[in-house]
């Protein structure tokens, strides 16, 4: 293998980063434009564009409504939720140095599911009306984080193995509690069980503008926080002793990553339920394409996560229309084969 000079290698890497971001932005734009036209009613791009820029003369009211009140908030919601889950995946895979990590390994998703089930089944509420379930889910996501953190702490240090085990245990506990609630629900009023199951599979069908703005309000600070520590996370991946010798405090970095990912996951999961696979697969795919540096993985995963969930949600709502499928089924059905394809191809190319 011919070796390039160091400067060239570094410049090439930077160029690759820029190219990747440009391609992803373009792909996001295109998938947005295609997906907003598709649905039970097909609305041609020209008309969608007119509606989007507010030029609604001569367009039927129901089409304006579908775009403005249904598809646009839903697609934007899919975008921010996909972004949230993906950056949480990057952060957690980083601190656990494990490509298998995702928001569910530290129990956040299960905790949120428990909170939601409590509200659905037992009518436990912390907030009014539409916000009852999201609030309970978010609060329980945060409680889970706190529990895992306290249980994972060993004499003031925060070893990732203990943290991971604590997360798995707490997650299993909440999963069992959710199952218990499901059994209770099955004996209770009709429809409750279905609501729990639907929530557990994840869905964007109730997306609206308020939800979108709330999740966005969590995504932005969450992203900034995680991105600010992306170089520290790089050092953590090499090892904690390496990190501390490079001037990085492993404990602070771990805490920031945990808190940041719980924040964005909690906010996303609260409204949509548990959407599996996004947080696992998107960071992984990005890493295979542009390398393991977290300084590019965070921004790239925001874009790729948004694209991935926008596309899968569009499939979920159109493939069996008017019947809608839970998006979690589609993320796994579409994501898994693509992921395996990349895995095989990459392995043949570089042998890692």
């Amino acid at each position, binding site marked *: *293998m011919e*070796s*390039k000079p*160091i*400067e060239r*290698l*570094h410049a090439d890497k930077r160029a690759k980063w820029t190219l990747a971001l440009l391609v992803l932005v373009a792909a996001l734009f295109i998938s947005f434009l295609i997906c907003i036209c598709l649905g039970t009613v097909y609305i041609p791009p020209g008309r969608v564009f007119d509606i989007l820029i507010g030029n609604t003369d001569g367009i039927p009211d129901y089409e304006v409504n579908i775009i403005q009140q249904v598809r646009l908030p839903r697609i934007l919601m899919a975008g921010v939720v996909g972004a949230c889950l993906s950056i949480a995946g990057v952060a957690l895979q980083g601190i656990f*140095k*494990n*490509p298998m990590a995702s928001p569910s390994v530290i129990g956040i998703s299960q905790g949120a599911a428990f909170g939601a089930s409590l509200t659905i089944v037992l009518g436990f509420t912390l907030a009014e009306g539409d916000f009852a379930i999201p609030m309970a889910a978010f609060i329980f996501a945060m409680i889970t984080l706190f529990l895992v953190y306290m249980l994972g702490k060993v*004499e003031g240090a925060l070893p990732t193995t203990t943290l991971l085990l604590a997360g798995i245990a707490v997650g299993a506990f909440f999963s069992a509690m959710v199952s218990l609630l499901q059994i209770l629900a099955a004996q209770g009023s009709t429809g409750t069980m279905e609501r729990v199951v639907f929530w557990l599979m994840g869905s964007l069908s109730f997306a609206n503008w308020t939800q979108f703005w709330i999740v966005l309000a969590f995504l932005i600070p969450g992203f900034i926080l995680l991105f*600010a520590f992306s*170089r*520290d996370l*790089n*050092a953590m*991946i*090499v*090892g904690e*002793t*390496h990190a*501390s*010798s*490079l*001037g*990085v*405090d492993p404990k602070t970095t771990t805490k920031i990553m945990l808190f940041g990912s719980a924040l964005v996951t909690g906010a996303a999961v609260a409204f949509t339920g548990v959407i599996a696979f996004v947080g696992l697969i998107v960071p992984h795919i990005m*890493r295979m394409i542009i*390398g*393991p*540096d977290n300084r590019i993985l965070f921004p790239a995963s925001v874009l790729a996560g948004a694209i991935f969930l926008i596309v899968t949600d569009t499939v979920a709502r159109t493939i069996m229309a008017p019947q809608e499928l839970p998006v979690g089924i589609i993320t796994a059905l579409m994501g898994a084969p693509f992921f395996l394809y990349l895995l095989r191809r990459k392995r043949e190319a*570089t*042998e*890692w």
Partner: protein
Amino acid sequence: MVNMRLRVQGIEFAYNSVPVLKDVAFEAMEGEIIGILGPNGSGKTTLLRCMNRALSPSKGTVLVEEKEIGAMSRKEIANEMAVVPQNCIITFPFTSLEIVLMGRNPSMDRFKRETREDIEIVKTAMEATGVTALAARTMNQLSGGERQRVIIARALAQQPKIMLLDEPTLHLDVNHQMEIMELVSELARREKLTVIMVSHDLNLAARYCDKIILLDGGSVLAAGSVPEVLTQNNVEKVFKIKSLVQYDERIDAYSLTILGTVSGNGN
């Protein structure tokens, strides 16, 4: 005039209230290679970790260039002192170049990118350890010796005055052990780097170290030059072997010959 680089003063440390280090003190000068020797559990690695404040001693202080390490930020410490940890297994496919570039972390602001100057420093560091040709390879594609040289390059990229090495030759083939030690001693001489290494290998330590600190049960049993410390009595007491240290003119250094074991654990 040789400058004092590091001063360890009366360090004590305990894990779960079991004392691991007891009143450990020594000094390290510019350009000096110091070997910390001792059997398993004698506190070698703990001492090393106290030196860069990965652990905080319960008593005593560490001074770097007369500044107390407890009062320095992690970044400030990293600008004075680089660590080459024992092993390096990386899950994700970082290239050697990316790893060495991490050495510039401590001197960079949070949102800044590497400057041309950073790249120059990294280039020099990689040339010094002979890993330039490996720059594009991922760490998992390298041999143990190559990986160790990459990590040493990263340590050099920190432009430290002190380099701490934890068992730098562990799990390496004999030729790579020699290669790493030759590299380290060349760096100490050329860059006036103070090198402090924990080692299991008495022979390599005898050959390359200017000074030896012999730990036994968490305290310093002896400290000083190779023939002063690695005496028959000391080595027998700590490692339970009979040995002989001699100056070998063929290599212009000391060499240690193991003569046999001590039967019956007699103290």
